[in-house]
């Protein structure tokens, strides 16, 4: 892999002036990956990151200001929560979570910045191409990533991610603080469920599909898939299309 496809995001406040950004000039310029400048790493919607992967990125790097220095006070913390959720989603999608890195830099310290970039680039080179860019099951990975992307748009998951700081560091509406481990468990479960549902949704949009077919396709127990179908019907994500023999087929609805 000569040129890994890496998308870098760097915040306006941590970017050393020497670093070129914004010109979509490919991956040639210093420091060898394409950097997109944003006001804050907290601005990177998880959907954007997953979109980059869907479009074939081998790695995504996010560089922001270290903890107390965020120009927007909490943008970096928010970015951390989002990256945590994203890594779970990537893992679910079968993409190594290390392909996403959130790191910190100072605008005055070009050297460290370049080092972060170089290290990440080397890491990606060592990891090889995104499974999307080759291999037999690239279609599967694409489906997974698209499901992950849709999951990242899901209201519930985004509420949880958005409120993670409040709930684990400040307090809930009952004046309780949720231990970070408990929160992670809740959010992990939700992430997994939503991911599976969105995957089913994508499959059911392609063509009407049965519980058994789905189960085979996503390698889950049919009873579990049925539970998801029930929930998805409740939310209007799928509907019964027809019953073939004894097999109900479900089709995905556009949401």
């Amino acid at each position, binding site marked *: 892999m000569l040129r890994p496809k890496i998308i870098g995001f760097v915040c306006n406040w941590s970017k050393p002036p020497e670093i070129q950004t914004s010109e979509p000039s490919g991956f040639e310029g210093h420091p060898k990956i394409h950097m997109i400048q944003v006001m804050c790493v907290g601005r990177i919607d998880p959907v954007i990151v997953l979109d980059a992967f869907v479009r074939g990125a081998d790695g995504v790097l996010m560089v922001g200001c270290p903890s107390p220095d965020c120009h927007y006070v909490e943008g970096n913390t928010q970015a951390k929560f989002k990256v945590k959720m994203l890594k779970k989603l990537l893992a679910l999608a079968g993409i190594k979570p290390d392909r996403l890195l959130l790191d910190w830099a100072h605008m005055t310290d070009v050297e460290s910045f370049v080092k972060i970039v170089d290290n990440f680039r080397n890491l990606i080179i060592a990891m090889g191409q995104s499974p999307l860019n080759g291999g037999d099951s690239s279609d599967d990975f694409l489906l997974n990533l698209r499901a992950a992307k849709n999951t990242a748009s899901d209201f519930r998951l985004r509420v949880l991610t958005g*409120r993670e700081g409040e709930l684990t560091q400040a307090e809930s509406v009952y004046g309780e603080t949720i231990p970070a481990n408990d929160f992670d468990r809740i959010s992990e479960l*939700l992430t997994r469920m939503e991911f599976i549902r969105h995957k089913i949704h994508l499959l059911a949009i392609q063509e009407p599909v049965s*519980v*058994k077919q789905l189960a085979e396709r996503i390698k889950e127990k049919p009873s579990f898939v049925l539970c998801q179908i029930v929930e998805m019907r409740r939310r209007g994500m799928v509907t019964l299309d027809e019953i073939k023999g004894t097999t*109900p087929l479900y089709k995905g609805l556009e949401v």
Partner: protein
Amino acid sequence: MAEKIGSVMVVGGGVAGIQASLDLADSGFKVYLLDKSSSIGGVMAELDKTFPTNDCSMCILAPKLVATGRHPNISLITNAELVDLKGQAGNFLVKFRKRSRYVDEERCNGCGLCSQKCPVEALDTFNEGLSNRSAIYVEYPQAVPLKYIIDREKCIGCGTCEEVCKAKAIAYDQQDTETTLSVGSIILAPGFEPFDARVKSELGYGKFPNVVTSIEFERILSASGPYGGLALRPSDGEVPRKLAFIQCVGSRDAQINRDYCSAACCMYGIKEAIIAKEHVPVALDCTLFYMDIRAHGKEFDAYYNRAQDEFGIRFVRSRVANITEDPKTNNLHLYYVEEEEPTTEEFDMVVLSVGMQPPAEASKLANIFGIELNGQKFCQTRMFSPVETSRPGVFVCGAFSSPKDIPESVAQASGAAAKAMSIIASERGKEIVAKEYPPERDVSQEEPRIGVFVCHCGINISGTVSVPEVVDFATKLPSVVYGEANLYTCSQDTQGMIKEKIQEHNLNRVIVASCTPRTHEALFRETVRESGLNPYLFEMANIRDQCSWVHVHQPKEATEKAKDLIRSVVAKARLLKPLRRPVINVTPTGLVIGGGVSGMTAALELANQGFDVHLVERTKNLGGHLREIRYTLEGENPREHLDSLVTQVLENGRIHVYLDSEVAEVNGFVGNFKSKINSESGEKEVEHGVVIVATGAKEYVPTEYLYGNAPGVVTQRELEEMLFNGAFKAESVVMIQCVGARTRERPNCARICCGQAIKNALRIKETSPETDVYVLYKDVRSYGFKEKYYRKAASKGVIFVNYNDDRKPEVSSDGGKLKVLFWEPIIKEEITLEPDTVVLSAAVSPNPDSKRVSEMLKVPLTKDGFFLEAHMKLRPVDFQTDGVFLCGMAHSPKFIDESICQACAAAARASTILSKKTLEMEGIIADVDEDLCSGCRICEHLCPYSAIEMNEKQTKVTAHVLEALCKGCGVCGTACPTKAITLGHFTTGEILAQVKAALVEEVRA
């Protein structure tokens, strides 16, 4: 003696509690209806359909739920539990704890946005865990009160619900509260719990996904349930082709200390099998494994027969010993013995018909209330006081006193209501508030001036429909003089505002464009009425349920549709006329036809409540059928009770007893009947407000089995008399069940004969244990706690032998020697016995006078000749005809306690009328334009309520609507060839205008 209190607490908001509450509240008592869950409805709300009519459960329950929720005299106390009880009958102090909902019930308007946005999922207990719900939820969409509740266990406290709640109803800091109330009496209706099928581990429930309980299967079958009403296998979502129902799971099972029958499972099992077949697109084999089919209720056997004949459901009399699963297919192997042959059979799915058990809190309730429970922890009642607990002033109804089905629960509930009001009859009307309205404005001379109020419903509507655009559109419509948008049009402050606007703009029609009139019309009509307008000058456009919620992704189209709906309703509103709600006077007197135990009980209950009663008995004696009952299965003394009852009736100054008399003629309508009572002493005319039919039934006179031709063949009634008199001696007795019942001509079960047979067999065994007693039966229907006597009889050596219609027993007489030939299915041999006596369990026949009475009262009979109530499930003692009620054996065969329940129930239902000086009828009724009427009588024939009579005036005959009888369906108006008759508020002109305006743009003149 402490002062009495005119209010009642009803504990448990299932169908029984609801019925009791409505009866009490409608009779002038304040009711506190307390339920441990967050909404009322109980188990019935979970059911898909109901037997034997296959009515949609929710469809028939929902109106009662709404009526309860809206009743000014009923306070709902949900999510609450009892803590303490002090005081005595007439004056109790009840302390209860209301658990925090974390939602302000005053503010929550049930829009449901919170639930939709809640990030936490939990198992939906209403759907028996087959689907998910959010941590903030209502149990079901039609829940009453429609107030959300936070599942604190699951809630993580993210605050999203509070943020999205536009009504600001979320109250995270809400605390549990303890309250003490004074009430005069108490009704316990806490219902039952389904048996935990995990206990029967051999059946694999909880281990094998395709083994489900019957209550889960109800949800599976329900259109609003997890699978959208399609029967599916939980293991893989496939439609099953072969379905097994296993009866008596947790019932009739001494091994697990459940020696009672749950009474309803056979019927619901059959029902579920029938409905399942209807709910799948493929041929579905349904097999029901049972011990006895207990279809002992009214018209149940007919249903059972249809299940076999019409639906091809296979019935296997066998107890399934064990179930294993094929791990590959998740199919199930059932091991059972059929005709002594061990058999294995594979099924796709198994439904366990789980029995009823007392609610978990039964012991706690018993402690708090100081009431006795029976050995099974059901509430202890007695044969002659079936709604009384052991504590005076505390009554019971529903499955808490014994397992029972819905109509029996409802009847018992009304019965309990009667008893509960009797003891505080003097306080009637004292705890309730009557509402005053301003005088009604005459708008007949005014041009229509319409005000349109468009609801945002938080963002439920405005999130999709452009409310400002709609308001703007509405205000430009002809006759609309005012329009505005409200955040929540239903909120309390908006009601005040609507009234202001009516005054300010001199509005004479009001339209609210918001949600469904089914839940909100009454509220707005009330508002309109409070501002001096006739309540029928109000209309609604449902732009939420019909626009914003169902066209979420088409805001433009939804907005256009909302406009069309409003234009359409405005067109109707222009034509709206004030309607009068007919008011009729009520004669506070009852007429009870029949002086048996039911009639006497009903009469006594009415009298106890302070109403005069005319009790008409055809024979010379009060007592009826009860006179022939010498002892009961439960060991009580019927004669003692009869004597006391008769004395009470005769000594009661309010009861006028007419013996040897007959009601010859009944005229008039609810509240205002005039009847003629004929007796030897002549004819007497009485006025009364209600009629209670308690004409009873008779023992069938067999023509079978040599009855009447051989002296040794007697009926159970005759046997009882002989046993009582000590005149019975025999070495061998054969009892034959179902004589004259469950035949082609009389397809239904006579209900009481199995009990009678067991009772008499036990009596024989008691007096002469060496006497052989054989009972030849089709199914032993010792339902409920009678099961225990069945077991006792069997243990005493009574031999029960099953027969079926293909091989009926044969009785012959060989020179005075009786011979009974029958097939013994276990040893598979024909057996001949030579008993001394053959006892025929003769069916129950309707009273021969029923037909005359039915015609006189214009009330229907069943095919069997019993009276047909208004609704088999929810109105068991009402007739379609208002003011006429039914109880006892006239309704269908039943035991004494059941008759007493029904009699009390009829009294309670009657008192909802008699307790009122006047009745206000619904204003939406038919109206005849006599000029147009051609007197063709089509309407008269079509009216299902006989509410139209023909009046002859000098020159012509015209139709006339009996306001008190009309229910407002409008069928008459549709059929009238001259359009002379129409339905108020849905006039032809109004609907035509509505149709036209829905389709065609209008511009302001």
